[in-house]
């Protein structure tokens, strides 16, 4: 029998398994549809006749109510009955024909759960005019109007494939961009957290120093008043008293401001005025920063605002407008929403592992670049990691990790970076080790561990030690990160960590242990720029031996006379005022942080180390250059900021 190509097309579109078995019905109907109804009648009568044959009743029969017919056994029907009556053995064809005559398959609720009364494999078909014992109504069955054909199908199918290619390429490129953005964003996020935290710490220190200074000033005012009163009373007394009081206690501040010792009230006034001005500045900045933090919180970037307002996302106080800050927060929200689901931090990495391999057609150049960069990445990493980082001595690292696999791999990586490694199973063991006096240069701390988690362990360790502690965790949402920082952690290494990430972390926090190629002494920065060398040396001496203020040793009055103010504090404001005038960049002056009054209990020393290491690393800032000058000029080798540092 001849078969029609067009017909085959139709069948394949209809979704059935079109094969070329004889299907004269469709042949006729397609080419002679003006006579279609007559032929329909022929076909339908055939069907009717077939159903009247009682020998088929196990395979195909009328439905129970006579309003439908049921194919009970699909296979036998297709193999033995269809060929006899319809000259083909294609059940799908049969069903298609029925559909053309407007028969419908009877569905029992949904096909999964509904049970046909004729058994689960039964096919029941129905037409309102096709009834048992009603041959006449068969005449009313008409072929449905043929569905409009779609001649440009071939073209249609080709075009979408090309478009799909294009769209896919764009999608991949976009995802790549998103991922880069996300990585960049996370990086910036961490940096922001660090910066803000440090700024907050600096500000709080500043405020503390302010209070100390105010105390000193008010005390000095009282001393000054008494002195002048005394000097009115007696000649010989006046002389000694005058020499006594100001240099011993006011010394650092006053000498700096005004050396005119014959007019004792004037330096005091000057200092008071300076203090007043300074105070205003600090207040302004402080408010500004808090404002930034608030803005970020309000914009809903993070649901739980941190308790002390030291959010990780505030902008630096110098970057002005609230509008820009709002914009940033908005961006922050958006990026998070869009990028997070495909991000690496979520463990889904469609860019590299799944997506690319599942795209069935060759990707254009952009794609290849992505693959290339992935391929070249490990090689580059290898080169960088196998190189000895150049430590002055092997850094002592404590690796706190409950998972043996991670611990061993982490240890191995660290070992390849020429580090000396100690490990602890959980936070408790880590705290015990450090409490027992073990000294480390860096602690790598898992967060979720049995017995004592990493955050709690850090909190405890911070009561007595300021070694840098890096959180190693897969929980790196920004509110997690800000919590880590609040409890005294210094940085975050996302898990699963890479060798590259680990090495970066070491270089960042252990820069002071590295050989400096250009001759910068790693421990260098003793002083901020504007502090005269002599006073620097003096303040250092003040710390080690309070009584040795150089010009007035003999006149030193017992510290007991100054309740609550230690000599260290007396020196501190002096150190501190000048950096303040020069701006925050001066926080590298280590001396100003030596005060034991650290309001947050925050890891001051660590922050210094980090800054130092940053100087030592990529970016030699102008501050670093200044420090280099000082290093050369002042090779004291004193390092007041690392009293507890292991050597």
């Amino acid at each position, binding site marked *: 029998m001849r078969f029609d190509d067009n017909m085959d097309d139709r069948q394949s579109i209809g979704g059935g398994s079109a094969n070329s078995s004889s299907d004269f019905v469709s042949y006729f109907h397609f080419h002679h549809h003006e006579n279609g109804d007559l032929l329909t009648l022929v076909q339908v009568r055939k069907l009717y006749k077939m159903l009247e044959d009682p020998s088929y009743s196990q395979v195909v029969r009328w439905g129970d109510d006579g309003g439908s017919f049921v194919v009970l056994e699909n296979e036998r029907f297709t193999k033995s009955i269809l060929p006899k009556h319809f000259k083909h053995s294609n059940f799908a064809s049969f069903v298609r024909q029925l559909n053309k005559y407007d028969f419908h398959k009877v569905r029992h609720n949904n096909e999964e759960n509904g049970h046909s009364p004729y058994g689960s494999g039964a096919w029941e078909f129905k037409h309102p005019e096709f009834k048992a014992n009603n041959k006449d109504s068969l005449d009313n069955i008409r072929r449905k109007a043929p569905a409009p054909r779609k001649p440009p199908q071939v073209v249609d199918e080709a075009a979408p494939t090309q478009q799909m290619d294009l769209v896919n390429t764009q999608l991949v490129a976009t995802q790549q961009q998103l991922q880069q953005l996300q990585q960049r964003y996370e990086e910036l996020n961490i940096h922001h957290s660090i910066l803000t935290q440090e700024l907050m710490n600096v500000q709080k220190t500043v405020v503390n120093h302010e209070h100390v200074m105010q105390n000193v000033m008010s005390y000095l005012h009282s001393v000054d008043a008494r002195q002048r009163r005394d000097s009115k009373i007696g000649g010989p007394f006046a002389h000694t008293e005058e020499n006594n009081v100001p240099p011993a206690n006011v010394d650092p501040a006053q000498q700096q401001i005004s050396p005119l010792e014959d007019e004792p009230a004037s330096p005091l006034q000057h200092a008071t005025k300076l203090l007043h001005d300074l105070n205003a500045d600090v207040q302004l900045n402080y408010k500004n920063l808090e404002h930034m933090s608030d803005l970020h919180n309000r914009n809903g970037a993070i649901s739980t605002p941190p308790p002390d307002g030291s959010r990780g996302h505030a902008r630096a106080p110098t970057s002005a407008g609230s509008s820009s800050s709002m914009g940033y927060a908005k961006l922050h929200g958006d990026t998070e929403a869009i990028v997070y689901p495909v991000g690496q931090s979520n*463990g*889904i*990495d469609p860019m*590299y*592992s*799944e997506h690319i*391999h599942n795209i069935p057609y060759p990707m254009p150049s952009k794609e290849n670049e992505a693959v290339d960069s*992935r391929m070249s*990445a*490990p*090689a580059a*990493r*290898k*080169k960088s*990691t*196998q190189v000895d980082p150049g430590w002055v001595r092997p850094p002592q690292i404590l690796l706190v990790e*409950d*998972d*043996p*696999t*991670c611990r*061993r*791999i982490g240890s*191995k*990586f660290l070992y*390849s970076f020429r580090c000396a490694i100690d490990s602890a199973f959980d936070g408790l063991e880590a705290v015990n080790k450090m409490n027992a006096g073990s000294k480390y240069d860096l602690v790598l701390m*898992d967060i*979720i561990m*049995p017995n004592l988690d990493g955050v709690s362990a850090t909190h405890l360790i911070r009561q007595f030690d300021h070694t840098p502690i890096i959180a190693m965790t*897969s929980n790196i949402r920004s509110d997690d990160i800000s919590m880590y920082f609040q409890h005294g952690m210094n940085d975050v290494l996302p*898990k*699963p*960590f*890479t*060798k590259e990430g680990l090495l970066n972390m070491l270089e960042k926090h252990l820069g002071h242990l590295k050989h400096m190629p250009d001759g910068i002494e790693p421990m260098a920065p003793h002083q901020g720029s504007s502090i005269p060398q002599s006073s620097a040396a003096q303040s250092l001496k003040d710390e080690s031996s309070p009584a040795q203020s150089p010009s007035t040793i003999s006149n030193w009055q017992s510290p007991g006379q100054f309740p609550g103010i230690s000599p260290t504090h007396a020196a501190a404001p002096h150190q501190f005022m000048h950096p303040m005038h020069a701006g925050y960049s001066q926080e590298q002056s280590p001396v100003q942080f030596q005060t034991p009054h650290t309001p947050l209990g925050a890891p001051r020393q660590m922050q210094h180390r980090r800054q130092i290491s940053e100087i030592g690393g990529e970016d030699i800032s102008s501050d670093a250059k200044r420090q280099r000058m000082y290093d050369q000029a002042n090779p004291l080798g004193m390092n007041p900021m690392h009293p507890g540092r292991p050597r």
Partner: protein
Amino acid sequence: MASHLAEESETGSAGLPDSGDSLDLSTFEQILEMDDDEDEREFSRSIVYGFFEQAEATFGKMDKSLSAAESQKHQGENELANLSSLGHFLKGSSATLGMTKVKDSCEKIQHYGAHKDDAGQPTNMEDTLLLKKIKATVATVKVEYKEAERILKQFYHDPDAHTA
């Protein structure tokens, strides 16, 4: 030195041809790089086989926890927390080895056990439903693990590889 390393990288990836997405090669190669001897691969082998033991032990604990939860209805809450921490535990090491699929499933177990949905958002699903989801995920992760194990054993020329 550079050429030696490049060579190592090539053998590293060439040795793992059919890993598909069961194993993230760039992650796993980091560990292979740590081997002193590319033929013996003592370090990475011991890591990987150590992980096998760890994984089997963890699966055992998960099964035990699941059946305990089923037999004692009131202990469901405790067992959920236990399952969550078991999931977290295996997540870390599987991620470090680059077993992406195993890692993702472990993360799901961790989430369900902590009353969270797949995406880690808090949910008020009932304990029994959470346990059911965990049970299904444990079954999945075992299959995913077996596949990764098969690939790795092949890589290490383990005679078990073909029977596994």
